[in-house]
């Protein structure tokens, strides 16, 4: 083992995390110094700069691939992909939080700080190749999101959401940690590469199966995969809408990154049947649950369970097709879901009063542009062509077909058809029903407009020219096989 002092290159390889952490601290420190009125604007701007700087740092980092800090962190195209994704989602969420915080009268300080700190954890998850570091990163990300979920302090439902998320989430991380311990017992290492060497050598200790199962329980909870999904609707319903947009995409993408490393780089045993069951359950329970929801946030919560299921289908496929498909899915899901929640947060108005389907009636007349925007995101969630959601499903299912998982694909395809129904209900409400209450709509702020523009462009780009992103994701496979 290399025991020298960390070099400059080591710090470059965690540069995005450093940038995010520094900006998070600046936000926290400046909070008491700024006066009430300037606070919101100033801190939002600093957080925004932080997220943009993280994107820049990720791009800069891309030319320094390799390991750092004694093999705990690895920068490769895989980690760059997820760093970029997390930073971009953070940027969009900050953009749409600005208006939201003002409308809901939430103090800005810790909010932006926590989002940036959460992003540190999520970024680190995708580059960490050592289970203990992964655990620490997971905790950094989780703790930030627990608090963020309870940020609508005046609403009891928000506190409920936070407590529920915290209690169940702590259980889940404990499971994960237990799995890490067993894995160490089984293979004598916590480094993913070494675990992979042991597990691919043929003789798989029985303990490793238990370890994988426990780790999967922990991570499955974080991505809201069935049967560990019970918390999702309640937490999403209570948490502030932009935060839901954040926590349903960025941490999920990061946890999927961890899962990809564990499943493929560490050659986890028993992968296919485990994924088969969980993916089929998630798709089915998520879609069936969403069918009967009248609250848009709950509906999107169940939809996120279903989408976790679709994404997991890729895990059952062969690595060559499965890994890029999963990465592409994570990216396109992030683009459309962040966008959808941005619109939901605007429609919600003060106190998030208007979040039921009935409240959406007639939005096509009252706010044509926003309604059209939400329609595009929903169509992408259905998986209609020329949106990212279509290619995401397409790649996942064709990867599964190439692995001869016909049964799973059939379940997935039927589920997509079922899913179309409840997304359509929202569109139908917006365009084909007369408004019941003339809820006054506030004008859309510049920040939200920018956030929506980014999400739309990303969604359509992924749907029209998916090739480049997929090819970039495909580099990972080549690297891991070396």
């Amino acid at each position, binding site marked *: 083992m290399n025991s020298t002092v960390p070099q400059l290159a080591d710090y470059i390889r965690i540069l995005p995390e450093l940038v995010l952490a520094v900006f998070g601290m600046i936000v926290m420190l400046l909070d008491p110094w700024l006066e009430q009125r300037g606070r919101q604007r100033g801190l939002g701007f600093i957080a925004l700069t932080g997220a943009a700087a993280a994107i820049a740092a990720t791009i800069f980092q891309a030319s320094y691939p390799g390991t750092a800090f004694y093999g705990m962190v690895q920068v490769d195209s895989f980690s760059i992909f997820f760093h970029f994704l997390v930073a971009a989602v953070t940027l969009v969420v900050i953009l749409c939080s600005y208006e939201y915080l003002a409308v809901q009268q939430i103090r800005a300080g810790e909010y932006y700080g926590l989002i940036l700190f959460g992003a540190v954890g999520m970024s680190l998850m995708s580059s960490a190749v050592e289970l203990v570091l992964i655990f620490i990163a997971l905790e950094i990300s989780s703790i930030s999101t627990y608090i963020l979920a309870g940020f609508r302090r005046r609403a009891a439902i928000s506190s409920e959401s936070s407590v529920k998320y915290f209690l169940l989430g702590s259980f889940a991380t404990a499971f994960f940690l237990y799995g890490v311990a067993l894995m160490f017992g089984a293979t004598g290492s916590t480094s993913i590469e070494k675990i992979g060497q042991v597990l691919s050598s043929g003789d798989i200790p029985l303990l490793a199966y238990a370890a994988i199962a426990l780790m999967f329980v922990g991570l499955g909870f974080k991505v809201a995969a069935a049967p560990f999904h019970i918390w999702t609707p309640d937490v999403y319903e209570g948490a502030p809408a932009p935060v839901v947009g954040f926590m349903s995409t960025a941490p999920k993408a990061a946890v999927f990154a961890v899962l990809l490393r564990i499943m493929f780089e560490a050659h986890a045993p028993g992968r296919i049947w485990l994924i088969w069951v969980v993916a089929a359950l998630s798709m089915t329970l998520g879609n069936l649950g969403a069918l009967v929801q009248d609250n848009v946030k709950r509906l999107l919560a169940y939809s996120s369970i279903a989408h976790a299921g679709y994404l997991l289908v890729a895990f059952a496929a062969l690595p060559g097709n499965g890994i890029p498909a999963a990465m592409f899915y994570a990216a396109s899901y992030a683009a459309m879901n962040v966008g959808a929640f941005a619109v939901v947060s605007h429609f919600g108005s003060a106190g998030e009063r208007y979040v039921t389907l009935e409240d959406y009636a007639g939005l096509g007349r009252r706010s044509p542009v926003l309604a059209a925007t939400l329609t595009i995101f929903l169509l992408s969630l259905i998986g209609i062509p020329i949106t990212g959601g279509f290619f995401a499903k397409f790649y996942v299912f*064709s990867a599964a*077909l190439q692995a001869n998982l016909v049964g799973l694909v059939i379940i997935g*395809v039927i589920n997509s058809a079922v899913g179309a129904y409840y997304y359509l209900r929202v569109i139908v409400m917006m365009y084909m029903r007369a408004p019941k209450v003339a809820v006054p709509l506030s004008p859309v702020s510049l920040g939200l407009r920018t956030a929506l523009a980014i999400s739309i462009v990303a969604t359509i780009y992924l749907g029209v020219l998916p*090739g480049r992103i997929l090819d970039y994701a495909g580099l990972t496979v080549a690297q891991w096989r070396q």
Partner: protein
Amino acid sequence: MRALENAILTLVTFVPLAGALLLLFFPRRHRDIRVFALVVTLFDFVVSLHLPVHFHRAQVGFQYELDRLWIANPNIHYHMGVDGVSMWLVVLTTFLTPLCVLISWKSIDERVKEFFVLLLILETALIGVFTSLDLFLFYFFWEGTLIPMALLIGMYGHGRRVYAAIKFFLYTMIASVFMLAAILWLYAKVGSFDFVTIQAAIRGGHVPNFAGAAIWLFLGFFLAFAVKVPLFPFHTWLPDAHVEAPTAGSVLLAGVLLKMGTYGMFRFNLGLFPEQARANAPWIAILALIGIVYGALVAMVQPNLKKLIAYSSISHLGFVVLGIFSFTTAGLDGATFVMLAHGVSTGALFMLAGIIYERRHTYEISDYGGLASVMPRYATFFLFVTLASVGLPLLNGFVGEFLVLSGAFQAQPWWGIIGATGVIWSACYLLWMYQRVFFGKVKHDVNNTLPDLSGRERAALWPAAVAALVMGVAPLIWLNAIDPAAQATLSPVLALASKVAGR
């Protein structure tokens, strides 16, 4: 000139979409929006006329082809091209859309901008379905028609519009999933979405496991198309969609959208799976015959004008399916011709129904009667179009149905006999409807003051009437382009048949 030959299909396909995007930035002045939409659709029609004018009629295969790599993984090409069949369907689309704009001029007075944006997007998607030769691209456009059409029905339709829109969407969406599955299977085995490549691979027997899967692939495609046509018993969405849709929606729905299904059967079911098509022809033809008779009988008892026309569509489209699965050149030529003729005459019927609805806000036949004396011009147009639809010789309906029936006779005499009753039925329900609406005394006083056709309405109806006449008098203009395409599609089937006979 060479560059234009390559780009013409792209131009025809995407001019409406470009118009829609420009329209998004228009101020909400209704008149400007309508004029602009009319200009765009007329321009597209004129551009599309390039296709038949410069079409090489003797040449077999696709023309105006353009093949560029779009996405490397999966291997998707931007491959456009038309043969005699799809070319005329493109022209039918571009011909009907300006008429739709005209007919919606006054009846759409709310959310006007959205209406025309959706209409233009729909036009692009419809043309794309007929011009794309890459299965993936085809599926793109195929699904692309769904949303604008559903929104047109759901936002601008009548009473039960939401129900109709959702039913329409779910029916076609679920059915096309099976087609997507079949397309993906083909891609997994052939490594290409290209129609020509896949066709060659199947004919050459280079597709592994094809023998076992072929019947399922055939059915996957067939189900998607059968729902769209709609073939009995998948037809229940159609009357709802038609009755609730705004006039322009009905015109495009009956005129073009249904033809996507029959076109798909022609291009993919026959083109890719000739053996399976032949093996399955008997029961498909029976469904088509049921559709012809059942559609006609139900049309006869409809008290609602629009529903009557909708069921007549089911009956007419039954002829198309019968012609396609008769595996004779006459049948296939006739099927294509019925597609075009039905598009023109049923499109015109829906426009006429829409015109009277604008004045009286009812489609009930019993609310009318004696209109011939009140609205003589309207009555004349209506009679002309009705006769065209009935299949009066020298008008467009006759040629296609005659060819289909003669093809069906060659295939199975009793198919022809039952099919021929459809012609009689259609005369019954259409003429009886005409009699109840136009003849006799005016029963309701409000009808006495109905104004006759306005200049704009006549401008929408004249082209359709002229087209109906020209198609009836000089069908060869159309048929000599259609025939080579039909023969090219049939040749592997006939080769197969002679092989079987030789044994």
